[in-house]
């Protein structure tokens, strides 16, 4: 008995280490085994999913991963989920970035998802980075063929996919990911492409909602949580699901800690210690 009391005492004195080990285990667990803990699915995520589900194989889709690597954890996993769906639907994808880190992030996404038997240059292409933010967007909207070389230096004329890209109207859908200020993309692309979907950090949702209700944006995915919802719709749990699993587990653990902490505190206090 005395040994057990000793152990509890040691653990009580080092409660921080105990808590941290618990958090680490719960964060690692879903990375190894995706659990698929149920989450509520937002209407907008379903709308985005249905929109992509209705695309025909061979339709052209334009994608801009415009965020910084440091923000990966906020929007990257959702981008993975939506790109995975695009490759599953066998649409043709053109990637162009208006952020300097965009092309590298596009490569990261393509490396992490299962692209099946899609061929570079035929089914998808990475056009690289266009400097100049909103001016660059306006120029691209005016003439997408303005770009002469892709990210790897191949002339655009030699790429089969680009033969069908004559104007911005050839794209059926535009997907862009950004972290904070979505206005430039919406200003330039709204009305030029039939549908626009954005993947955005949860912090910026309030900035985007007016555009969604106004119709300039077709739908949006709110960050990694949106990604997890999307993966649940695809029935294909991935990184976003494991992140949300870990978040759910950790926060439940934290809530248990609060309860346990209060019980032990009040027990001591009522005993008059």
């Amino acid at each position: 008995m005395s040994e057990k009391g000793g152990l509890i005492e040691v653990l009580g004195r080092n409660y921080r280490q105990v808590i941290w080990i618990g958090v680490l285990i719960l964060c690692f667990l879903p990375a190894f085994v995706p659990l698929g803990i149920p989450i509520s699915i937002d209407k907008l995520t379903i709308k985005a999913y249905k929109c992509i589900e209705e695309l025909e194989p061979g339709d052209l889709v334009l994608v801009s991963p415009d965020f910084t690597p440091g923000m990966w954890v906020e929007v990257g996993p959702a981008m993975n989920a939506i790109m995975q769906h695009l490759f599953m639907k066998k649409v043709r994808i053109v990637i162009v970035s208006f952020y300097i880190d965009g092309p590298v992030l596009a490569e990261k996404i393509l490396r992490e998802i299962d692209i099946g038997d899609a061929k570079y240059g035929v089914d998808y292409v990475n056009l690289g980075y266009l400097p100049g933010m909103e001016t660059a967007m306006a120029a691209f909207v005016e003439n997408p063929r303005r770009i002469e070389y892709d990210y790897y230096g191949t002339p655009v004329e030699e790429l089969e996919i680009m033969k069908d890209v004559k104007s911005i109207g050839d794209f059926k859908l535009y997907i862009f990911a950004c972290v904070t200020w979505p206005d430039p993309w919406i200003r330039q692309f709204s009305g030029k492409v039939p549908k626009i979907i954005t993947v955005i950090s949860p912090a910026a949702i309030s900035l985007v909602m007016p555009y969604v209700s106004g119709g300039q944006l077709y739908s949006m995915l709110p960050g990694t949580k949106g990604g997890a919802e999307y993966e649940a719709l695809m029935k294909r749990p991935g990184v976003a699901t494991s992140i949300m699993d870990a978040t759910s587990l950790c926060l439940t653990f934290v809530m248990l800690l609060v309860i346990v902490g209060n019980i032990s505190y009040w027990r001591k206090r009522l005993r008059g210690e």
Partner: protein
Amino acid sequence: MEVIASLIVAILTLMAWSMLYRETVFYRFVEHLIIGFSMGYTLYITIDTLKKIWISPMLAGNWILIIPAILGFLLYTSFSERYRYLSRWGIAAIAGSGAGFAVGRAVPVQIIGQIKPFFLNLREVGAPAIINWLVVIITTVTTLAYFTFTREHKGALGWAAKIGRWSMMAAFGATFGATIGCDLLYIIERCIFLHKAPQVYLLPIAIIVIVVDILRRGGK
């Protein structure tokens, strides 16, 4: 090269996280490495900035920039017992412009800007919005009342201050809870990075080292 970078980052991450267990030589190494790296990078960025905003304009004939440069170099006199009063000149200029900037915006943005939203067109909204409006008014006014310094918090002011403190506590709790949800993402992201090969092979090594250390120290 990518694999080597991943391995180095994974090793550094585990070394840094060893602090969660206890203060170790591994953590100390990462701690000092980070100081050195960030100093090196800050130095590079600063020299680059100085070239752009000082050296090049001055060589182009903008000689007036010598005045702020002298004030800037006066900051270095703080290391000398004899001349350190001169460093206050430079500090005064930096602090003065900062204070001016802050005070200039304090009234329009932080005071008037915060009062303006208290207007609510009562005819156009329903009962729930009016209740919320009242809640915001009460919490704001009582929080302001809490900061009163020249009266003891007794009587009506005491009650107002108490309600103000309670509403502040609710606000703090809410921010605290909301922040954890976001900051956890970074830990999870690191865990997902660590679970990939080849980094994942480092995990058992780290666990063995810690277990050995716990046994060696006998549960201190």
